[in-house]
């Protein structure tokens, strides 16, 4: 499903490319090691010869060079990043909804996105105020993690973190950080456009390195979340029940909270605030595959990836390119209302 969406999406744009051509380009890009090479170490006689693998494409389909460049250098990084961000948000949304046993929970419920927004806006408006020489993404990521840590510490007392307190602390901190963002926006002057654009969520100007870093992080942490899928199932029945069947509830909560905050922070740092993916996708998938997290978590992550790639394709294929956050919210909100009317959402 994800592969199909990605392939079709790579063909859509100002230069329309057939899906078959895209597939050929992608298959051509797959390189496999075909042999071992020895490089003689130049200069010193003591230097050992270096061993390297010789890589070669597996296939060599006939494609136009221009098309290959467009697919591999322009569209693929963007699609890869979109898929990664959607993957992260889809998974984190499932974990947060299960964790809070609350259908309104989304990956940003403990203020991760608001913290990232403050970090990013601060960098744009007043770069000198951002420590450690961090870039825009670094500042946003740091803001996200710092916020998650603060909310967690506020809600924790004596080693226990009641989810209701966590939820309310998250809401309060989000409101406060929203005020900070608004204040910074007011004083952003010429960079206002850039700030607003960032806040809306975007996937343009994506680079493959970003997709790789975020992707590896997301796959690793979602893998970690998956190990706790059964714990999440038991926690749906209540924390006391989960403890009674042998789950170390507080430890599980800490691990899940940390994992989902980090993936969400990373996603928001590279793509801005993309709303509704982490809220809608888990609900829609729960209707289809049921509440068992062993199935729901991976399905929702992959569906999040597909949805975001599709939404971004829509966002960039209009007359003027839109930030993808607008598209996800514009599509997601009506769909959410539809689910709400069917009363399915209340049955978490």
């Amino acid at each position: 499903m994800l592969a199909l969406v990605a392939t079709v999406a790579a063909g859509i744009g100002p230069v329309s490319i057939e899906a078959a051509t895209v597939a050929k380009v992608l298959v051509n890009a797959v390189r496999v090691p075909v042999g071992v090479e020895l490089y003689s170490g130049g200069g010193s006689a003591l230097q050992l010869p270096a061993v390297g693998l010789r890589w070669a494409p597996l296939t060599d389909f006939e494609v136009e060079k221009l098309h290959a460049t467009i697919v591999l250098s322009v569209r693929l990084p963007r699609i890869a990043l979109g898929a990664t961000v959607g993957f992260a948000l889809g998974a984190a949304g499932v974990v947060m909804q299960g964790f809070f046993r609350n259908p309104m929970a989304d990956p940003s419920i403990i203020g991760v996105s608001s913290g990232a927004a403050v970090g990013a806006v601060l960098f744009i408006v007043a770069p000198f105020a951002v420590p450690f020489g961090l870039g825009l993404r670094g500042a946003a990521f740091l803001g996200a993690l710092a916020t998650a840590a603060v909310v967690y510490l506020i809600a924790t007392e004596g080693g226990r973190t009641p989810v209701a307190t966590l939820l309310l602390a998250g809401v309060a901190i989000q409101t406060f950080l929203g005020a900070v963002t608004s204040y910074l926006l007011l004083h952003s002057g010429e960079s206002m456009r850039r700030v607003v654009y960032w806040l809306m969520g975007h996937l343009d100007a994506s680079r493959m390195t970003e997709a790789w870093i975020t992707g590896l992080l997301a796959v690793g942490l979602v893998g970690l979340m998956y190990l706790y899928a059964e714990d999440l199932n038991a926690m749906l029945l209540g924390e006391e029940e989960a403890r009674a069947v042998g789950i170390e509830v507080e430890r599980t909560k800490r691990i899940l909270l940390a994992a989902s905050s980090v993936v969400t922070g990373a996603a928001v740092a590279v793509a801005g605030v993309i709303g509704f993916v982490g809220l809608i996708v888990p609900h829609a998938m729960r209707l289809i595959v049921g509440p068992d997290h062993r199935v729901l978590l991976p399905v929702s992550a992959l569906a999040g990836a597909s949805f975001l790639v599709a939404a971004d394709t829509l966002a960039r294929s209009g007359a003027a390119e839109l930030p993808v956050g607008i598209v996800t919210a514009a599509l997601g909100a009506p769909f959410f209302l539809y689910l709400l009317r069917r009363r399915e959402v209340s049955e978490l």
Partner: protein
Amino acid sequence: MIDVSELSVERGGVEILSDVSLAVEDGEFLALVGPNGVGKSTLLKTMGGLLRPTAGRVLVDGHDVASLSARQTARLVASVPQETSFDFDFSVREIVEMGRTPYRKRLRRNPDPDGGDRVEAALERTEIAGFADRSVASLSGGEKQRVLLARALAQDAPALLLDEPTASLDINHQVRTLDLVASLNETVVAAIHDLELAARYCDRVALLSDGAVRSVGPPGEVFTPELLEPVFDVDVAVSENAVTGTTSVTALSRGETI
């Protein structure tokens, strides 16, 4: 099997239990009786390691439950809660399988080899195997109660703690549930409101009042007007049930006499 000594428990800053000592023998079925709010649930939860005592301790099979991990505790004691909200779409079997959690290890290919058999046995025992694949959300109150009991049986722990196992059941299911529990030959502690049922099924009863154990013993010794009247603040008549031959307690209306 379960040894409660000098136990005090606070909840929300209020002392619920103070200086409770109670010993439950191996294989014994003990009922906790007493008025609402007296601390029966709190005592059960502390025995099950769900609440931490402020003083004293609970030993199960010689282990202090407050110092055990959740997994270790869950292998020693299985708790059946008073009620659980099942408003999501898990199947009966999936809920019962949750009872195997303490035996699973992450990242193992075959994490729990005898889990499947234990789950099937628990489903059979509680007579819910017939609807094992139905959604728990579609079940009646009595059926849900049996699902929770099945989950506790799948947990395969030597001690079973039940909080009001018969409260929401009709008379048929009350008797069937307690028949099943009594036939397990496990160590069972159950909070039971119905004194008649407690007298009929339990080996001993513990009468609780104001966060303390007032009296422990066989039902015939504890269920006397002298002990029950001050605790429940009502006049009672104690007689022998003509059918079961066990002690029967009848609360009297104000001004009513025998």
